[in-house]
């Protein structure tokens, strides 16, 4: 009798484990996502996240999970989720920086707690990163947005100008960097420097290898050279 019970127990456990396998959860999540069932998709992605074999697999799920939280307007849940993920020591510095950037973003757009956003971004800054990469750029872009919103234009320039020395900065990121520096100079009343950076932005925008809208730079240049 004991043996039969054990066998039954093992079978039940195996079946439940199988139903909860990582690929299966992924499959169901993906299907729900495609069907527009965001709530269900998030549920399965969350399960897949828990069952993921390693940090790399977990990390790869984050963008879609964040998108779904946002879509479902679950800002508080997303905040808690990101805070929890950031405590996961198995993420590498680059992955952690991504999480900090995303978390800060929640407080930058819309402006909820800019002081907290600033702290998160300063924490991100302290993590080693390959200069010029997207995640590296994103930290500074968010910092610049915060300072620009506070009309601290000198700080925007202080943080963003060094990025332009990074040869690996993608042309689209170079464009954005030059634009925010240009706008900051303009706000400070320094038209000559503003024009210089808008022109640099235009040059970078034209180098973006895909279709890219750099009309804003053109507009500023036109306005300043009238």
């Amino acid at each position, binding site marked *: 009798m004991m043996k039969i019970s054990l066998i039954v127990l093992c079978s039940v456990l195996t079946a439940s484990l199988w139903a909860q396998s990582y*690929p299966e959860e*992924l*499959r169901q*999540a*993906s299907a729900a*996502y495609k069907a527009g069932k965001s709530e269900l998709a998030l549920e399965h*992605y969350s399960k*897949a996240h828990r069952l*993921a074999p390693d940090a*790399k*697999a977990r*990390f*790869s*799920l984050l*963008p*879609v999970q964040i998108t779904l939280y946002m879509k479902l307007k679950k800002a508080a849940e997303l905040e808690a989720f990101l*805070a929890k993920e*950031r*405590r996961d*020591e198995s*993420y*590498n*510095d*680059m992955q*952690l*920086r991504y*999480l*900090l950037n995303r978390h800060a973003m929640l407080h930058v757009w819309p402006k909820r*707690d800019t*002081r*907290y956003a600033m*702290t*998160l971004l*300063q*924490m*991100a*800054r*302290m*993590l*080693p990163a*390959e*200069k010029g990469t997207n995640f590296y750029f994103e930290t500074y872009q968010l910092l610049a947005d915060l300072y620009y919103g506070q009309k*601290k234009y*000198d*700080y925007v320039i*202080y*943080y963003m100008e060094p990025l332009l020395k990074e*040869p690996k900065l993608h042309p689209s990121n170079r464009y954005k960097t030059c634009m925010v520096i240009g706008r900051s100079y303009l706000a400070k009343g320094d038209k000559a420097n503003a024009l210089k950076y808008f022109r640099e932005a235009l040059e970078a925008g034209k180098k973006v290898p895909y279709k890219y809208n750099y009309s804003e730079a053109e507009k500023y240049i036109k306005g300043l050279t009238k």
Partner: protein
Amino acid sequence: MKKIFLLLALSAAVLNAAPLKIAENGKACAGILIPADAKPVTRLAAGELADYLGKMTGAKFTVGTQSTHKVNFRIGFGDASDFQPNEYVIRTSGNNIEIYGRDSEKPFNWFEFYHHVPWQGSLRGVYEFLDLQGIRWPNPAIEYVPKKKDLMVDDLDIRRKFDFITVKDSPTWDFIVKTKDGKEYAKKIDKVYQWLLRIGFFSDRFHLYGCHSEFRLGLYKDPEWLSDPTRLMLGFDGKRYNRYSCWTHPDIVKIWIKAVDGYFSGKSTVEAGFRYIDGKPPKGISHWPYPFVCPDEFMVDPMDNTSTNDGRCRCDRCNQYRKDHPCEDDTELIWNVIIKVAEFAHKKYPDKFITTLVYPPKQQLPKRKLPPNIKVRICLSGPKVGFAAPKYFEAEMKKIEDWYKLTGNKVPLWVYHCIDFGNAMPYLVETYPRQIARYVKGIRKWSSGIYMETNAWNGCFTPINLDIYINRRMMNNPDRDVEKELKDFFKAAYGPAASEAEKFFGELEKLFADFWKKTVPADAAPGLVVPWERKGYETKYSLWTLTYTEENLQKLENLVRQMEKKTAGTIYARQVSLLRKYMFDEIVNARKQLFADEAARKKSAYTVPMVKGVPAETDWEKAPVLNLRQADRFLKTAVVPGQFRLLSDGKNLYCRAELTEPALDRSKSSHTRSGSRDIWHDNTFELFFYSVADRRLSQLIFNDLGAWSALVMRRGSEEWKLLPGVTVSARKKTDSWSLDITIPIAAVLPEGGELRFNATRERNIKGITPEFSTWSGLALLGEWHNYYKLPTLIIR
């Protein structure tokens, strides 16, 4: 079978007994003959010979179809119809010195002959002859030509065929614009090609050119291909990635066969059905764009993986394939496709080859038998493997041998001499010419050559010059003695300072080994590109504390100074100045910049006065006053005064702050209870503590109502908490407020060791722009969490 053979057959019947006189007392005694219909590259070879013989002897040598001299160089006369590329003969015969190989009919230009034209035997022969006379070209800007007014040539009978047929490294078409010091070496790129041709040319265009051809097919832009998402890689996240294919989808074999058929049948990309292919065909080179430029080869190779995408499809079919064909990576899965494509190609185009890289995610030897038309390029750690445990060197050699045996072809390699790739380890000069020589000797039996991926060190060529030179010299002839090569290099490049230069680079090589030993576990693998698992700040920082220490850099500085002294006023002074500017000063400045903050931080360390137990008023009166100053680096205005004092009894830190506030009635403080995470919107005084041992930053925030909270940050996470034992009492006066704070040292320094500290203030008063002040002049606004800028607090 040895591929390089050097025959010095001394046969009295054939060869002259006496050496041939080329120049005497600065006058030419020999002519240089070329055929009347000499090919352009043959003419160039003769011109190079005349030029350098002239530089050596001071005589004027003429090139022509006739000569009045008894002794003559005859360039390009021999029958080289059965020669391989780069094969040549240098032979004395009677009064003649014959130099010839198979030469291209094409008009000569440096770019073309460097990249695309391997048939330049006579030129190679001339360069070998000049090399035998002691001429060296250490880099594009400098050459060493021994001066000999009298020049005699002994009997020669050399026929050389190279071990290696492909060698490439990073100096290429964008050398001048891509490197900070490129223009110091060459004003025009032709000079760089000229240098590379002189020190040993091997064409790579015809031999396993390129990588990751899947991406180049442009399928990710092709609406027809994208119409079925199951053809695309399914990622971890359940998303399909359009730049990667699912390599078990039946259409993947079909699409590659279509590409191979189209290419080998001479169709254009559009005719072959690949209208979205990336790039344009290089004119006169191929009818398809790069990397499809080898006439007899077509590369079938997956898209490159990234740090967030391993390039492996996770669809059910791929997962099932992995279960059915167990393998460490996707070798079996991807080779299943390549083999089918190769089998097709073998039937229809029996003299053509299918090529691919041995690179993640297919690094293993496939278990299946390969068709005979497969060639691979293996991606390996390369010469730096010599710094890892010996088993890794042996494993690399074994891997090359295994692939040679499996494919029946000598295998070219792709090795990595770029530890600063991705900013992984900037400033560490990667130089190990002896390891390069050892590696080249090790691979010669099984390998057809190397592409050595060299990153310009911090954007400079100067530090990698030596290793590129030695790599090419050794690939040219692996029998060369690397010690002699090094001596020749330093003599040629640094003249009177050769010995110091040799010591300088020797030191750098030792320092590289030293850093490796100190930061890479003894049994750890060398990694494909870098040996460090985490490219973290700490590893990078340790370069300056473990290896590039002040003492070691001083040793190097002394050598540079000696070199400067010895070369002053000579042509070699410039080479030394390049070494200083683009290498040594770069290192020193990087260190200075890094340590300037550290020096200032150390200088501003503060020793807390000690008291017995809780401080009495008299203790506070004696305690030094620490003032707060403007924290906004862009504001020169004075801040409302604020000051504090610190005392300690060894267990607790006591802080008394006196903060002037003329508008205290308009304070924004609203929190009366401690523990709120919104407290920093209040009118506050803040203390920052950084515990170095556990890398923990604690930010304690106190408002003018006596409430407080603490944010404890560690790596990427933070936690709001009330640190145990912290007490605070606030007192308001008419134009100021004060705080008495007690902090148990264990609460902010749980593991002991170094404690860093700063105090700041944020005046949040209604109607006034927030005003920030700080105690440390290093940790200004925007840097408050930067623990590299917090002064050390000494509590004895």
